[in-house]
């Protein structure tokens, strides 16, 4: 049981610098966007967790935020995998926000779908393992995709090796939805200008019986 779908078009814009990237745009916001957002988020977390606005607490908050920023700046130079630094391309923030809302909707759908499968008297599950290749722009996009696959209905990421994703799917329908490449394209669009869902998911291999491995 193996169907192989080749991508209709190779990835031409894979390493290309998009207009949202930093190269030709030297404004302060774009260059230090990650740092500014990090400071804002960490301060918000500190304020929520402490809930006090006395000078002493604010002082220790500033110290903690600075310490965490320093630590993560040291971490940032360490590549996540071989020869591949973490943030080569910038994420597009408006798309990230839309994506997060879409993800919440997916969590609700996924929970109700699996709950329906569990409570169904005959339990109509047909589990299988799907392997496919999805060329994501960088390591972080792969992590986001793996996490999103786990959150969408009936699929669970088992392993990610380079571009090869191994996914456990509960039923045939969710497998078809997965290999349609819709979500892969959504994740890639967080970093790139545009891409079609046909290009994002290729070399699909289904393992539906014990002899397949």
């Amino acid at each position: 049981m193996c169907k192989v779908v080749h991508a209709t078009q190779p990835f031409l814009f894979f390493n290309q610098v998009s207009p949202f990237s930093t190269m030709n745009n030297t404004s302060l916001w774009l260059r230090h966007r990650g740092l500014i957002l990090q400071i804002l988020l960490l301060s918000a977390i500190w304020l929520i967790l402490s809930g006090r606005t006395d000078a002493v607490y604010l002082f220790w908050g500033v110290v903690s935020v600075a310490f965490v920023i320093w630590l993560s700046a040291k971490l940032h130079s360490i590549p996540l995998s071989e020869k591949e630094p973490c943030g080569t391309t910038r994420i597009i923030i408006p798309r990230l926000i839309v994506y997060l809302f879409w993800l919440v909707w997916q969590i609700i759908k996924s929970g109700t779908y699996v709950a329906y499968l569990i409570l169904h008297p005959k339990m109509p599950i047909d589990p299988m393992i799907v392997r496919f290749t999805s060329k994501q722009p960088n390591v972080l996009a792969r992590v986001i995709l793996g996490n999103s696959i786990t959150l969408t209905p009936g699929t669970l990421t088992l392993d990610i090796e380079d571009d090869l994703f191994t996914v456990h799917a509960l039923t045939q329908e969710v497998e078809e939805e997965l290999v349609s490449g819709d979500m892969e394209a959504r994740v890639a669009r967080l970093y790139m200008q545009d891409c079609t869902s046909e290009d994002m998911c290729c070399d699909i291999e289904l393992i539906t019986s014990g002899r397949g491995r």
Partner: protein
Amino acid sequence: MSLLQDALAIILVLGGTFFMLVGSIGINRLPDFFTRAHASGKVDTLGILMFLSGLAVFEGFTLTSAKLLLIIAFVAFTSPVAAHALARRALIYGMKPWYGKRKDEG
């Protein structure tokens, strides 16, 4: 307003407990490790999220509900990672997935 808030909180908390119950039933009913990871990783996540957001709605706009929202965000990000880590370890360890009765006979 308060009535609506309470009603919404009750609905969310009841829904959350329902999904957590279904998740536990699923862990017992489903046939193998990987399908059980689906139950614990998804249904339970949704249950906990609904439960906590019900509590946040019950609190209203206070610091406590902000803390609850923080917990919600962390649970939403970490729970699928935990499910993935368990399932990946099981696959590498060599655990055979269950592919359905039909195909085992054929």
